[in-house]
């Protein structure tokens, strides 16, 4: 798929002819109708609710339709502390979402465990099990931050390719759509992280 020459397109637009490609049309439709999955885990969920309500109004970006079923949702906003008890359910919900699907990791807890990082029962970041598209720091992030993440996600969707080697992951047959659900082990979740997605940072000690 060849890119349209920008100058030619601008010239045509001046004459009243609008030129677009299948990829742009597809991405335009997709990025402006992101339906989030309706679930919240902790205090970040309150900020997510505020974002959906009239004052911050996520409907301006086409994301107001919070779906109660993962089958109808495009976006998973992991809003809050992910406990180890909850992590398998979240991975399962992610697996049940239809492609293409995106994840926003909202708040310090969903990124890394946040203030509860030392807790025995808190998962140290949801990106150990599912791929995350946008991270928002904050404890909790303000609704503006969530809107910013939403716009970043829209920008990301807009850049996805329909064909070629670097096409979007959901269009590649070899890319997995489901990720293994962790089991409750004796002391921790088994496995503690998905090795295909997450590698713990290695500390090199110099003597």
């Amino acid at each position, binding site marked *: 798929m060849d890119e349209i020459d920008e100058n030619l397109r601008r010239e045509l637009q001046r004459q009243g002819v609008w030129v677009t490609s299948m990829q742009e049309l597809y991405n335009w439709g997709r990025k402006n109708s992101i339906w989030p999955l309706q679930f919240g885990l902790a205090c970040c969920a309150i900020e997510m609710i505020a974002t959906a309500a009239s004052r911050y109004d996520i409907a301006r970006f086409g994301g107001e339709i919070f779906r109660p*079923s993962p089958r109808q949702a495009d976006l998973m906003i992991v809003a809050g502390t992910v406990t180890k008890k909850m992590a398998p*359910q979240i991975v399962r919900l992610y697996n*049940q979402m239809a*492609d293409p699907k995106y994840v926003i990791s909202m708040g310090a807890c969903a990124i890394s465990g946040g203030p509860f990082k030392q807790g025995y029962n808190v998962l140290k970041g949801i990106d150990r099990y599912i791929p995350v598209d946008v991270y928002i720091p904050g404890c909790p992030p303000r609704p503006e931050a969530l809107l910013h993440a939403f716009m970043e996600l829209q920008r990301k969707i807009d850049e996805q390719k329909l064909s070629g080697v670097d096409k979007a992951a*959901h269009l590649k047959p070899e890319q997995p759509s*489901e990720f293994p659900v962790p089991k409750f082990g004796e002391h921790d979740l088994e496995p503690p992280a998905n090795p295909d997605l997450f590698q713990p940072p290695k500390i090199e000690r110099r003597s």
Partner: protein
Amino acid sequence: MTPNPYLFIIIFVGVALVFPVLPLGLAWLWRKFFQPPKPGPDKMSIYECGVESIGDAQIQFRSQYYLYAIIFLIFDVEAIFLVPFAVAFTGLPVGAFIAILVFLLLLIEGLVWAWGKGCLNWYQ
């Protein structure tokens, strides 16, 4: 010349068919040519709440719940009739008063019968 009045219904039915079928057809074509299907055990599972389902959906309910439903009806109907009766109590003629007393007696009789039969005991 006025058009046939059924013409509008035919147009309406046509639009009502095309409107849902066209996007579904487009989505089907899209899936066929662009998006590879990726089914899996989680995605194809029946329940979608994140928790794995336990047991079978086709189970038998105990017949004892039937008795509960009947006794519930006694109290429920009684309450529905008693509230307007109590509101209009001062303005009621004697006949209406006796009528509601007979009605109450019938329901209380049913309750006494159920009690005497042992329906209020819960058997495991």
